[in-house]
């Protein structure tokens, strides 16, 4: 789960990281009032959960409250990569001398958290990693010790920070690691961390990605989820304990298991079709869950055929078949369906579906070919 910039920075502030003064506005008038209260030039920043806000025109400077109100009016309601801007952050504008990148991520290879910094802030760290990896300084953090002061100093000197800033940089690095651990994050970054004209460090932009599996420990953070930023079908899927991602194709698919669901999408593509979604109904899915999943697939009007690929293990084919029947009664779809059931109770499952006007097969390849042909109107 991604947090907004303003949420991330407020969390950073709790861990002693200096952030600009500012507040969130949902109307131009509010934005103007915040700018008036700050009494300084401000930066108006759209709060949407995508990168590249600046390039899209979603971040702009305003010299006075009137201009802040006018610019907020332009940015609010703007569409950035398919997301509508509903909130702006109005921050005091920092006078910037230098931009730094500082972040903590979980490194899968070393099975530890790693802190990374680069003297080139403000750009995406992945870009720096690709173009000039030698500019990134990394330290591996022992989870039982946490980030040590010497490690923070190593990074500070590594990126060529002036000596008088090393102490405050180390405190920010320690705060960032504590924020990362304290929120069960999988990523926490300050980008950029700037050196101001007053020669102080300031976290101008921030980002936290939370580990969904850690949310049970943080009900306060779980509440920060912005449903506006999630496709409605994905929200509904989450509430049903399903894993759903909408795609652009027209062959809907329902599969048990994430790996098999991805493989099923790939096979659809291989045989000339395009998957409409990723959908994993999980292990041991019962009829009601299957019905919810089918409703979700069919709510996508691009769907021209549906492929069910169930490899029964813990999941029983007869349970899935019952769910399909329940959903069919309710939804009365008019798209062709292909079902492939293998594994636990497959005969019973196929018997249940015999009268449901679906194409049944035991071969994955054949199932995919049938579903692709059906989506083209060839079946």
């Amino acid at each position, binding site marked *: 789960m991604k947090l907004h910039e303003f949420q991330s920075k407020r969390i950073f502030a709790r861990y002693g990281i200096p952030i600009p003064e500012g507040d969130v506005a949902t109307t131009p008038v509010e934005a103007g009032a915040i700018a008036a209260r700050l009494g300084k030039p401000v930066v108006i920043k759209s709060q949407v959960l995508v990168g590249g806000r600046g390039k899209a025109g979603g971040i702009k400077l305003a010299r006075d409250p009137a201009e802040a109100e006018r610019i907020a009016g332009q940015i609010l309601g703007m569409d950035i990569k398919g997301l509508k801007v509903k909130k702006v952050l109005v921050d005091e504008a920092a006078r910037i001398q230098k931009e730094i990148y500082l972040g903590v991520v*979980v490194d*899968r*290879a070393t*099975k*530890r*958290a790693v802190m990374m910094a680069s003297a080139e802030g403000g750009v*995406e*760290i*992945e870009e720096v*990693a*690709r173009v000039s990896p030698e500019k990134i300084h990394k330290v591996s953090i*022992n*989870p*039982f010790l946490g980030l040590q002061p010497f490690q923070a100093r190593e990074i500070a000197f590594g990126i060529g920070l002036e000596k008088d800033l090393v102490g405050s940089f180390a405190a920010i690095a320690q705060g960032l690691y504590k924020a990362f*651990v304290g929120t*069960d994050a*999988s990523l926490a970054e300050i980008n950029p961390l700037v050196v101001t004209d007053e020669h102080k460090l300031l976290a101008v932009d921030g980002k936290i990605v939370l*580990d*969904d*599996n*850690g949310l*049970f*420990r943080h009900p306060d953070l779980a509440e920060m989820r912005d449903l506006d930023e999630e496709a409605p079908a994905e929200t509904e899927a989450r509430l049903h304990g399903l*894993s759903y*991602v909408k*795609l652009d194709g027209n062959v809907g698919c329902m*599969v*048990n*298991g*994430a*790996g*098999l*669901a*991805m*493989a099923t*999408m*790939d*096979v*659809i*593509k*291989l045989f000339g079709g*395009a*998957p409409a979604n*990723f959908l*994993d109904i999980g*292990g041991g899915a019962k009829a009601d869950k299957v019905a919810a999943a089918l409703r979700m697939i069919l709510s996508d009007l691009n769907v021209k055929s549906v492929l069910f690929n169930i*490899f*029964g*293990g*813990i999941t029983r084919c007869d349970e899935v078949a019952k769910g399909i029947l329940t959903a069919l009664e309710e939804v009365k779809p008019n798209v062709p369906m292909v079902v492939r059931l*293998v*594994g*636990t109770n497959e005969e019973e499952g196929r018997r249940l579906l015999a009268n449901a006007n679906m194409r049944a097969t035991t*071969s*994955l*390849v054949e199932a995919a070919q049938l579903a692709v042909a059906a989506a083209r109107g060839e079946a």
Partner: protein
Amino acid sequence: MSVLVNKQTRLLVQGITGREGEFHTLQMIAYGTKVVGGTSPGKGGEWAAGVPVFDTVKEAVNATGANTSIIYVPARFAPDAILEAADAGIELVVCITEGIPVLDMVKVCEYLKHTSTRLIGPNCPGLITPGEAKVGIMPGHIHMPGKVGVVSRSGTLTYEVVYALTQKGIGQSTCIGIGGDPIIGTTFIDALKLFQDDPLTEQVVLIGEIGGTDEERAAEYIATHMTKPVTAFIAGQTAPPGKRMGHAGAIISGGTGTAAEKIAALREAGVRIARHPVEVADLVAETA
């Protein structure tokens, strides 16, 4: 003809009195796995699935000589269960549980570095040596004893591939599901080493997916250390970037972790790449 689990496996089930734990214990016993007991704190002295239940892993190990454990406890208690098994000297711990916080696994893996315990998982289907022992939740009947080692980050996708192998009459030495989480105990490289050193495994099937760079590291290892042929399938070629595809670890982030990169790296290392799961069996048959 196997790695990690076999007829000498003496299995302890942690969380045996739960619904999943008891159900799968019965299934594992029916397959022929030697299940020697289970644990469930506070239920020591009772019986479940026909085996004795103990309060602690230490007690169970002392009483039964268990050398392997499988964990079915909920995510918030699973890290503790792994540590308890390691502390009791269990050599192989298999954690089925899905949904463990990543930073908990960071700590667990750091601790395990200083023990001789090997962890498989979490968020995995377990492992099986066909005809000898099933330590997991996979449907046993689709497997067949043989000489192909299988290692995979996925569950049902592995069943799909194994089913295709068995249908072609190609048996498996051991099938290891290493799990779909970002931080896992046993990685592809660890499993490949085991298969390379197992005299009775003749070739290996690797089933990967988007996210992370474990497949790329495996490719490096294959190129430099493996003499046995490897066939691979990588799931997620049609997955969009930035979206988590079910598994916590299956996400393309910042342009890394794509199927295309993994396939390129494996191909470079001489690995044959199947275009779909069923084709894995065809490629393996050509080499056998």
